[in-house]
């Protein structure tokens, strides 16, 4: 992105600048409001929520809703909180992210540096595949998972997320490797490096940025998935997103405990939010790589 060295189009007097800053701050408040309300509500007690203001700070400050959301709130069938489902999500997200990223890097390497007749066709098919709504895959996949005995399991979700993640990781890596000069690979091959050693010693050492993009993109996609989780699992094997929805929308008995709902929502959001805060720059790069240029 060519940064402008001069004052872009900016002009205008101090009043105009104040208005611009005012609007931007207002927009920031709009984007932050739900996060603020989510956090403050999670630390309030129920009487405080019922009698206080939506925007007030919690006083007294109570963490009991967090404990309930983690270990005792009802999520449809059972009342053991979200902790079990949190670890479910970790259990399929970690391997699915690693596998889909590894395959993406390998595919991108072959599709750019070892082209063969038909490799462009494979890439084209892959690209088109990224746009197909997942709804097209649900009925057959449910059948196949049933036949191979992986329905309603963390292993099944790992398989599903890996398979449908490869298209995106391959796209990212292919677009990154295409910009690496072919001479680099040719030189290594003349020196006697094989297919695998060229990958290990020439390509992998310069791949860190794109691998970060893949990992972050896949992590947010897979952790946040709801559709595959709700269709392919039930009860004990649910991912955290499905459990959160059950916690909020199926608990029928008694008073609505908004503080527990909000604590549960933050617990669900925390991993991806942390990744965004720590590695936001790669997050944006992954999004634009997927969106702006195929």
């Amino acid at each position: 992105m060519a940064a402008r060295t001069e004052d872009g189009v900016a002009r205008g007097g101090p009043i105009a600048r104040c208005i611009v800053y005012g609007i931007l701050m207002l927009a920031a408040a709009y984007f932050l409001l739900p996060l603020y309300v989510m956090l403050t509500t999670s630390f309030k007690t129920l009487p405080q929520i019922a009698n206080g203001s939506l925007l007030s700070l919690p006083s007294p400050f109570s963490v009991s809703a967090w404990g309930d959301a983690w270990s005792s709130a009802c999520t449809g069938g059972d009342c053991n909180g979200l902790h079990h489902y949190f670890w479910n999500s970790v259990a399929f997200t970690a391997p699915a992210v690693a596998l889909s990223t590894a395959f993406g890097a390998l595919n991108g390497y072959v599709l750019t540096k070892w082209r063969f007749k038909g490799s462009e066709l494979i890439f084209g098919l892959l690209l088109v595949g990224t746009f197909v709504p997942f709804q097209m895959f649900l009925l057959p996949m449910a059948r196949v998972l049933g036949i191979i005995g992986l329905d309603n399991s963390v292993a099944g979700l790992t398989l599903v997320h890996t398979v449908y993640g490869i298209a995106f990781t391959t796209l990212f890596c292919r677009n990154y490797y295409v910009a690496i000069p072919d001479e680099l690979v040719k030189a290594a091959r003349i020196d006697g490096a094989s297919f695998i050693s060229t990958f290990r010693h020439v390509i992998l050492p310069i791949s860190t940025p794109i691998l970060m993009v893949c990992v972050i993109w896949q992590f947010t996609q897979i952790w946040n998935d709801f559709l595959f989780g709700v269709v392919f699992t039930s009860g004990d094997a649910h991912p955290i997103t499905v459990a959160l929805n059950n916690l909020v929308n199926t608990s029928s008995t008694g008073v609505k405990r908004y503080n527990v709902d909000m604590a549960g929502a933050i617990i669900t959001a925390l991993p991806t939010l942390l990744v965004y805060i720590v590695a936001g720059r790669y997050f944006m790069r992954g999004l634009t790589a997927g969106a702006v240029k195929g």
Partner: protein
Amino acid sequence: MSDTTPPAGPPTRGMPVRRWLDRWLPKIALVPSGVALLVFVYGFIGWTIWLSMTTSSLLPNNTFAGLRQYEVLFQLDVWWVSVINLAIFGVLYVALCLAIGLFLAILLDQKIRAEGWLRTIYLYPLALSLVVTGVVWKWLLNPGLGLEHFVQSLGWTGFSFDWLVNPDMAIYAVVIAAVWQAAGFVTALFLAGLRGIDTSIIKAAQIDGASLPRVYLSIIIPSLRPVFFSAIILLVSLAIKSFDLVIALTGGGPGYSTWVPAIFMYDFGFNRGQIGLGAAAATLMMAAVALAMLPMLIAELKERRDGRKN
């Protein structure tokens, strides 16, 4: 295998085994992904289309029924409710995201001091699960204790904001939450586009006496065409697939009032044992995405052809 050691020694290209490996290993490496692509993407597309043309109900079967499932589908009120909801939701979602995104991007492009911070704040909702977004907005929009109650407590006691529980308005509540989630992303896309514009043309126009709004309307915004294009494609395909947010925010209700095709597909295909109808709904969703993609594909191909000419 000598693969693990860095390249060293005399060239070994002549070795037959090595040549054989170099020729076939790349293809072998693509086999797992290629098979997955053929089976789990294209095979499943074919399978779902086939299911939509059978009499499958509780269990899939292979009794050919032509387009009967589609005929049944088109006679269901709840399907049309879903389609109309998607149209309302999709148009508003895309239009609002584009408007807010472009507006904020233009403001952010005025040499703003805290730009990095603001961009981070605008974009973070996209890192959240749509289920989380739905849960939070369900709390904010609930008439009893949420924003309605808050505004009333400020003194405007007649204030009413009950969209979430009002069947005629609930789909607009979904729009509010969905726009909140994606507007920052569109802002970032437009900002990247603005930064890529050649400033010399703008300078020249300003020297010629063009006013700032005029510069934006006749030079800057038209040159953002490609960004509009990719943002629209992306937002339309997101809208067609929207499922999680509606489930978490309204559960499709009140009644059927916020059903969308993705909910229809899930409910008929998995809860009601109407696999044929579910498959037909999924197939139509794919057709809709393909229709939305078509203009982009054509433009892309044209661009490529023109690029080759130059």
